[in-house]
């Protein structure tokens, strides 16, 4: 069966004064109908840019999407659609929820108006039908006394309630795909859990496919069928949720898992944050982008060869030159200063 969404060779760069920011570098993935895909990665790894490219919401310029890139939604390449055709997809077939519910709703329009405008636009409903549907939607996402709240403005809702409103807006036209870009990041932990529960319930009731973006592996754990990890604009590991947690095969994923608190962790399994910072997206390193921070690196090899995403087990792919697992012993590494010098020598004109 053809997947609902297939992204092929997606490359996105931004023209800036500081140079070309290569935000997304040849990303390939798919999403089946009704499936939930988690996209995980540190801030700046290209998750939002990927989702905005799918929705064609990136301003061009400064964004440049490579002409070879394809975003196939039900077989149709969205990147080649005319603007008015694309507008029929946005909000109707693919809907989106954003990170900050405080700023994502228009402060001067009632939430009733903001929910009903999609219904009127895509479902051709009249005022009355749209209002009735809006009340249903607010009830569905768990907003108490929904009838009375249609005339309220966003500032009259709490953060969690606003995110529920955003979700109600997003699902209003029965989209096939819901892209949730860090939907819980701006919320308190307890509210986070409630919003995730709501998304799970809606997925069951509506059968919507969800692309759940987060920088927190803990958030996607109980929710996603498949997970893919992004680093420096690339997908560096992808697998079904269980094997990814049980047997991560890319040092970056291993690092991420080590850096989140786990209920089953023993005394010695303490949190180990990943050292260092993501690479500069203007001048990406020639080899493995994770090399400067990788505990398992072998500089001579890792700095010269780009690891491609390869199958390490059935349905499990990782972008590492070596077969590394959680059990692989961490080798002795030269001190960071030495690494820095080595890099300098390598990039200097003389070397």
């Amino acid at each position, binding site marked *: 069966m053809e997947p609902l969404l297939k992204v092929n060779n997606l490359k996105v760069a931004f023209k800036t004064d500081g140079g070309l920011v290569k935000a997304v570098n040849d990303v390939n993935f798919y999403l089946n109908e009704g499936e939930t895909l988690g996209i995980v990665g540190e801030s700046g790894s290209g998750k939002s840019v990927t989702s905005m490219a799918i929705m064609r919401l990136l301003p061009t310029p400064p964004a440049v999407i490579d002409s070879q890139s394809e975003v196939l939604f039900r077989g149709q390449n969205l990147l080649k659609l005319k603007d008015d055709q694309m507008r029929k997809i946005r909000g109707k077939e693919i809907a989106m929820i954003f990170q900050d519910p405080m700023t994502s709703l*228009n*402060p001067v*329009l009632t939430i009733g108006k903001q929910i009903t405008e*999609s219904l009127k636009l*895509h479902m051709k409903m009249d005022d009355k039908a749209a209002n009735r549907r809006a009340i249903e939607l607010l009830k569905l996402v768990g907003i108490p006394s929904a009838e009375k709240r249609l005339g309220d*403005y966003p500032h009259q809702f709490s953060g969690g309630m606003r995110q529920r409103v955003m979700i109600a807006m997003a699902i209003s036209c029965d989209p096939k795909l819901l892209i949730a870009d860090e939907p819980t990041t701006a919320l308190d932990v307890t509210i986070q859990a409630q919003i995730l529960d709501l998304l799970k319930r809606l997925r069951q009731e509506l059968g919507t496919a969800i692309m759940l973006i987060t920088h927190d592996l803990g958030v996607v754990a109980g929710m996603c069928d498949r997970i893919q990890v992004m680093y420096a604009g690339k997908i560096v590991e992808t697998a079904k949720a269980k094997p990814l947690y049980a047997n991560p095969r890319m040092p970056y994923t291993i690092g991420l898992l080590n850096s989140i608190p786990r209920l089953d962790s023993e005394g010695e399994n303490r949190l180990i944050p990943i050292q260092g910072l993501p690479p500069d997206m203007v001048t990406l390193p020639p080899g493995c982008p994770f090399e400067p921070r990788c505990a398992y690196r072998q500089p001579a090899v890792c700095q010269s060869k780009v690891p491609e995403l390869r199958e390490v087990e059935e349905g499990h792919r990782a972008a590492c030159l070596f077969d590394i697992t959680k059990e692989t012993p961490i080798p002795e590494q030269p001190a960071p200063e030495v690494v820095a010098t080595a890099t300098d020598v390598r990039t200097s004109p003389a070397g």
Partner: protein
Amino acid sequence: MTKFIIRRILISIPVLIGISFLVFMIMQLAPGGPMAAFGQNPRMTAEQRAAIAHNWGLDKPVLEQYVTWFFSMFRGDWGTSFVTRQPVTQLILDRLPATLLLMLTAYIIQQLIALPLGILSALKRYSLTDKVLTVLTYIGFSMPTFWLGLILVYTFAANLKWFPSGQITNPRDPAFNSATYWPWFAANPLTAIGSLAAHLVLPIITLIVVNVAADSRYMRSSMLETINQDYIRTARAKGLKEGTIVRRHALRPALLPVVTNIALTLPALLGGAVVTESIFQWPGMGLLFISSITAADYPVMIGIVFLLSAFILVFNIIADVTYAIIDPRIRY
């Protein structure tokens, strides 16, 4: 809302009293004081001056003078001009229509040009249109009003003779707002309006060039900021057309910071009238104010300054109320 407006007006009353006190005191402190008009008159003896001062209560304590003055102002007795001996209110009322005509037309035209230009510039950011507009606004912004007025008169009145070089009516027609003017206006409305329009063109351009430049820049930056907000992205993600997004989602938030500015440019325009009216000999309050200063005609001066202050206050209230109407987050 009504309550909010009433409260806002009540708050302004002490402000107005404060302003009146300041105006009064500044006039007292001015060189020569209220008697300056008589200071230079060599034929007047010290006794005569003292008699006048006594007559007007100027020998009383300043505070008492202020209270007396305030209450008579309040009753509508704004005093009589030292120069013409006419009541100040009469002088001002005679001149007010010409000034209001100039200001209101200039004001409306200014907003009609500045706001759309600013919005256009923001929506077409970095386009050729935006760049051209940017250059033009910088030129407009740095144009001295006085110099611009003279250039306009020189080019379009003296040389090209497209427009009259000054005044509000043609010399052959009855004087504006005089006893014969309105009957004449009623009898020849088209001629009269045409003549007014022709006389208005150059003064209006002179008045608004700087303001259009400033206001359109202001509108542009406000619209740019709005268009980059998260909720505009949300609106785009809904599949709305760009025009709908601007009209329904961006316009109101973008106008919010501009509203105060818009409401306060009218009194600012009134202030700018002084220069423009004197360039074009426009028979309004600006000219009256200048002649009152030259003649040290204190009652007229005080009257005009006080009226202007009241104007600014009223427009502040209008700004606040409009703001509260547009922005649901303001609680009143």
